[in-house]
C-alpha cells in the first residue's frame, strides 16, 4: 500500500543553543530522524526545507543538502510562515502518492534566539503586515494577534484570565517534556501580572523566541526498513484566506474550518473521532481561535474547555503534550513542526509522556501569518 507515512522524527531541545547556527541545528534534527528511520543519507531521494530568518537564502534546500551531504532527486524550500512545516509534510505526502519520490526528508531549524536580537526578530516577522497601511502604524506580529484577541474578548465575553488557561496548560505540559525551553510553573495570576506586550496580550500570552530544529521522514511504509513504526498520513487540507489582518474573513478563523474539513473528508474521519490534537499556539488567542475554528470547541468556549482539563494529557482530548510554542518554544518553522513530531511520537509509542488513553487518531493544524494560511493533517497510528 502506498499510504504516505511519517516514518521517523527528529527534534532538538529548544532554547539557547549557541554557537549552533541554522545549518548545524537542521543537521542535528535531520541526523536524528535518519537514525530513527534506519536510513543512510543515500536513501533520501527528496528534500523539503523551511526558511530561516537568521540565514535567509535563495536556495535553502540545496544549501542544506550540500552541508548535510545529500544529493536528492527532488529538493526545494517552502514558505508559508508558521504553516510551513505542515505544508511541507502535506506536499511530501502528495509527492509520495504521485510516485515522485520514495523517502523525503522534511527539515527546518534556526538559531532565532541567539542568532539575532529580539528587535531584529520582531522586525523581520513584521513583514507579514501590509507595508503601506499596517506596518507604518508600528504594528508587528504581537500587535496583529492582539487585535484578534481584542475582538475575541469583546465578542465572546471571555476575559484575559480565561485566555491565560492556555499558558498555564502549555507550561504544565512542557515541565514534564525533555528539551522544553520554558519549564517553570505559571499560574493565571502570573500570566495576568506579566508585562504587557500589546494589550490584551502579555508576555506569558506570547511564545518565546527559541533556537531549535525539527525533521521528519515522509515515506511509503513499504519502502522503509523492517521495524519502522510509522504514523500514517490519511488526510490533508489547506486554506489560504488572506495575508493581512485588515483583509481577514468573517469569521476570522474560517481558514481553519476549511482546512480541517478538507483533511477530515479525505481521511474519511469525523472531528469527534480525534483522540489527540497538535495545534499551533503562537499566542493564547491563536489557540482559542484555532480550536474554535476547527470545531473542537464552541464559540467562546475553548478557554473554559482548557481550564476544565479537557486538553490535559489525561483529558478527553490531549493538546500539545510537549508544551507547544508557548512553552516547548518557537524556533520558526521548526516550532510549527514540533507539534507534528510529538503527535507522531504519541501515535507510535515513542513519546516521553505517553497519553494514558493511548491515542490512535490525531489532528494537527497550523496557521501562518495572521490566521492567513492554514494546513491540517490527519494522522493515524498502526491500523
Amino acid at each position, binding site marked *: 500500500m502506498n499510504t504516505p507515512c511519517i516514518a521517523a522524527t527528529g527534534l532538538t531541545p529548544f532554547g539557547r543553543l549557541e554557537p549552533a547556527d541554522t545549518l548545524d541545528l537542521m543537521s542535528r534534527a535531520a541526523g536524528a530522524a535518519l537514525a530513527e528511520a534506519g536510513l543512510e543519507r543515500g536513501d533520501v531521494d527528496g528534500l523539503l526545507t523551511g526558511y530561516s530568518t537568521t540565514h535567509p537564502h535563495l536556495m535553502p534546500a540545496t544549501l542544506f543538502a550540500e552541508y548535510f551531504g545529500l544529493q536528492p532527486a527532488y529538493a526545494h524550500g517552502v514558505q508559508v510562515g508558521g504553516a510551513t512545516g505542515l505544508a511541507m509534510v502535506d506536499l511530501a505526502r502528495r509527492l509520495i502518492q504521485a510516485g515522485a519520490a520514495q523517502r523525503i526528508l522534511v527539515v527546518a531549524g534556526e538559531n532565532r534566539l541567539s542568532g539575532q536580537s529580539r528587535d531584529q526578530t520582531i522586525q523581520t516577522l513584521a513583514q507579514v503586515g501590509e507595508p503601506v*497601511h499596517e506596518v*507604518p*502604524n*508600528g504594528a508587528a506580529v504581537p*500587535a496583529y494577534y492582539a487585535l484578534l*484577541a481584542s475582538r475575541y474578548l469583546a465578542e465572546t465575553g471571555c476575559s484575559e484570565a480565561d485566555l491565560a488557561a492556555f499558558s498555564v496548560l502549555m507550561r504544565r505540559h512542557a515541565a514534564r517534556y525533555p528539551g522544553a525551553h520554558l519549564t517553570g510553573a505559571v499560574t493565571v495570576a502570573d500570566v495576568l501580572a506579566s508585562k*504587557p*506586550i500589546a494589550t490584551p496580550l502579555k508576555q506569558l500570552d506570547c511564545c518565546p523566541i527559541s533556537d531549535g530544529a525539527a525533521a521528519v521522514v515522509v515515506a511509503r511504509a513499504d519502502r522503509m526498513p523492517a521495524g519502522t513504526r510509522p504514523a500514517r498520513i490519511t488526510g490533508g487540507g489547506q486554506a489560504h484566506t488572506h495575508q493581512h*489582518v485588515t483583509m481577514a474573513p468573517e469569521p476570522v478563523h474560517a481558514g481553519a474550518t476549511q482546512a480541517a474539513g478538507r483533511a477530515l473528508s479525505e481521511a474519511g474521519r469525523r472531528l469527534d473521532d480525534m483522540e489527540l490534537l497538535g495545534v499551533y499556539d503562537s499566542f493564547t488567542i491563536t489557540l482559542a481561535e484555532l480550536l474554535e475554528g476547527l470545531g473542537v470547541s464552541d464559540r467562546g468556549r475553548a478557554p473554559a474547555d482548557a481550564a476544565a482539563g479537557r486538553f490535559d494529557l489525561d483529558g478527553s482530548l490531549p493538546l500539545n503534550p510537549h508544551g507547544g510554542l508557548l512553552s516547548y518554544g518557537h524556533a520558526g518553522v521548526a516550532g510549527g513542526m514540533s507539534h507534528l513530531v510529538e503527535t507522531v511520537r504519541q501515535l507510535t509509542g515513542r513519546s516521553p509522556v505517553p497519553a494514558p488513553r493511548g491515542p490512535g487518531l490525531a489532528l494537527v493544524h497550523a496557521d501562518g501569518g495572521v490566521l492567513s494560511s492554514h494546513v491540517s493533517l490527519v494522522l493515524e497510528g498502526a491500523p
Partner: protein
Amino acid sequence: MTIPSIDPAAAGAPPRIERCRACAHAWLTPRGFCPRCGADDASTEDITGVGRVEAVTVVHRAAQPSAVGPAPYTIALVAAEAAPGLRFMALAPGPVAVGDRVRVTRHGDRGAPYLVAREAAFRDGTLEQ
C-alpha cells in the same frame, strides 16, 4: 524601514481607496485592477473615514517607534462605513474602545498611516465628511 512621523493633531485628509467600476468592490492597497472580478477599470476615490472600531491594542513593546512616536501607542482596526468589508488599521491618539464610532483621517505623504479620531469628536458636532 524608516517610519515617517506625523502630527496626530493635524486635520489630515480623507482615506483614499480604489473601487471597481464594474462590480463596486473597494480596496485599500492600490493595484489598478479589481481583485474580485478582475476588471481593469478601477477608480481612485477619497471616502469618508467614519467607521466602527472592531479591535484595539495598546502596543507596549515595539522594535521601532510608530509614526506618532515610541511605545506605548494605540492601534485600532476600524470597519469603514463607506465600503462594507473594508477595514482601516489606524493609530489612535486618544483612548478608543471596541464598538466606538470614529473617524479615520489620512496623514503622511505616502497615503499612510491613518489616524483614528476620538469618539468624542462626534459628540460635539464636529463630524464632517
